[in-house]
């Protein structure tokens, strides 16, 4: 390779050997982006005024901007877990038997006040630190749904219906634990890409910064994919279709569940959206609240980016099916 110093550090008169390749290449791609931005701003902006395009762009930017602080928070927490919390802590904090660790990790989700964008990097950091994947997955599914912020938002959105909060908590935790146990029983290690942050050079702080950079670049890119999809559906699907469907009982639950996936609303806001869908029965709204924080477009993109495709194609359908079934069960019994 280039020895201990990269090309730019060479003080020779001639350009270094690595010029034009390797790590010290000039950032032409980025320069091109900047040129596009400046030229586009001067020439295109006056023409980009179609209401549909502007509405789409508003929703797209809104999803990105809303999720970004949570992603940064999650990534910072995840990097802190890998850089500062010794692996031995987790072996002491969680029960030794994996089957018992799953529900404990699920319940631990109740203390992380973030939405789903934060939980993916945190779960990945837990796995990198040796927490059994099944327990980390239970935490991943439970934490966006059952943390205090989300439960309070749910209580505010459904005034006078405390059972909605109870059902959301119970059903979400049940799905998270069941999925964790399923993974324990049938999951295979090779499906799951467990990231290794542990290696690296420099002090703890440098490693911390590197882990954050890595996760932000990666997860952030996939977050944008999800935001693109969510904005497009938000603008493209006519809402009248929903009203027509809401009246048909056996159709209402699956439709609301699919809608939760497509709309990709933050778990802190989804209760307000569910409450506004007045045409739908309570069980369908519960399905919306249980599915949304566990399976949605931006989450699928984030998971595929973090844990790999082989994992996501198995994990997502199982979680979705379980979430719908458990919601119907809880809704039928309690709502």
């Amino acid at each position, binding site marked *: 390779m280039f020895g201990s110093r*990269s090309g730019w550090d060479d003080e020779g008169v001639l350009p270094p050997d690595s010029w034009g390749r390797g*790590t010290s290449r000039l*950032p032409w*791609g*980025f320069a091109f*982006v900047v040129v*596009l*931005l400046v030229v*586009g701003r001067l020439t295109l*902006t006056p023409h*980009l005024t179609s*209401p549909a*395009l*502007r*509405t789409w*762009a*508003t*929703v*797209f*930017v*809104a999803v*990105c*901007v*809303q999720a970004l*602080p949570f992603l*940064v*928070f999650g990534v910072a927490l995840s990097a802190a877990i890998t850089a500062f919390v010794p692996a031995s802590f987790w072996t002491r904090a969680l029960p030794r038997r994996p089957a018992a660790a799953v529900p404990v990790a699920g319940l631990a989700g109740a203390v992380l006040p973030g939405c789903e964008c934060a939980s993916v990097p945190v779960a990945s950091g837990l796995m990198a630190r040796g927490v059994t994947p099944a327990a980390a997955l239970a935490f991943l599914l439970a934490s966006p749904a059952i943390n205090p912020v989300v439960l309070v*938002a749910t209580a505010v*959105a*459904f*005034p006078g219906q405390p059972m909605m909060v109870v059902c959301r908590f119970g059903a979400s935790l049940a799905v998270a634990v069941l999925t964790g146990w399923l993974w324990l029983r049938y999951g295979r290690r090779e499906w799951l890409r467990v990231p290794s942050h542990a290696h690296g*050079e420099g002090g703890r702080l*440098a490693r911390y*910064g590197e882990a954050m*950079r890595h996760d*932000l*670049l*990666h997860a*952030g*890119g996939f977050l*944008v*994919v999800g*935001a693109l999809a969510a*904005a497009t559906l938000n603008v493209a699907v006519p*809402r*009248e279709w*929903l*009203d027509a469907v809401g009246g048909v009982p056996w159709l209402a639950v699956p439709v609301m569940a699919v809608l939760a996936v497509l*709309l990709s*609303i*933050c778990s*802190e*806001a*989804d209760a*307000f*959206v569910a409450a*506004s*869908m007045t*045409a739908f029965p309570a069980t369908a709204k519960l399905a919306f609240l249980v599915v949304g924080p566990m399976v949605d477009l931006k989450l699928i993109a984030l998971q595929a*980016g973090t844990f790999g495709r082989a994992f996501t194609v198995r994990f997502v359908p199982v979680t979705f099916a379980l979430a719908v079934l458990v919601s119907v069960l809880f809704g039928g019994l309690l709502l």
Partner: protein
Amino acid sequence: MSRVTQSLVLALLGGAVLWISGFSTSYLNYVKPGFRPFLVGAGIVLVVLGVAGLFIRRKHDHAHGHGVAWLLCLPVFAILLVAPPALGSFAAARSQAPALPRQDPGSFAPLAGGGPVDMPVGEFIGRAWDDDRKSLTGRVVRLTGFVVPARRGEWYVTRMQIACCAADAFALKVLVRGLKAPPRDSWVEVTGTWVPHTFGRMPNGLVYPELAGTGLARVPAPAEPYE
């Protein structure tokens, strides 16, 4: 994607987030006002990580497999090129149902004062549907919102309400009677009195509370476009 490029992309995104939250109020088109400190914080973290990455070199740089990080430029393109405004009549016309959670009928305070009462559109709708004491009856109120055309030359004075971000927005609409419709999407202050509904139970389908308009003034769009 080289390390330098990664750093520049992070700094660019952070700069854009700082730009809309720290140095202007356009973030209000996308999220709630209380979200500003989090946006500023996230923007600063991104800029710091990006700038630090430019100066701190690593011996073994494995800058591979981050092609997806290019997508982080897309929000910057949207912010700079489209400069997305607050949701307007296009979104409002597509928003379904008069979608407010039912409010407690006893929770409405009596309206004070004698002159026109300034009121959020959402409060007007709440009082129109849910107030047992019918506090709106005979009172002159003033609503601020943008114009969404309705059928037969009538129009709605409209405000979007967001719970978290613009992706979950829904429209609060009040049908205005007796005033000629201003241009679509223009912001107005409309004065008038509530037209009590004649039905006892809420009918199925979409119904909006109505206002018999008496006065109309064009106003600039407010900094906080959502309720």
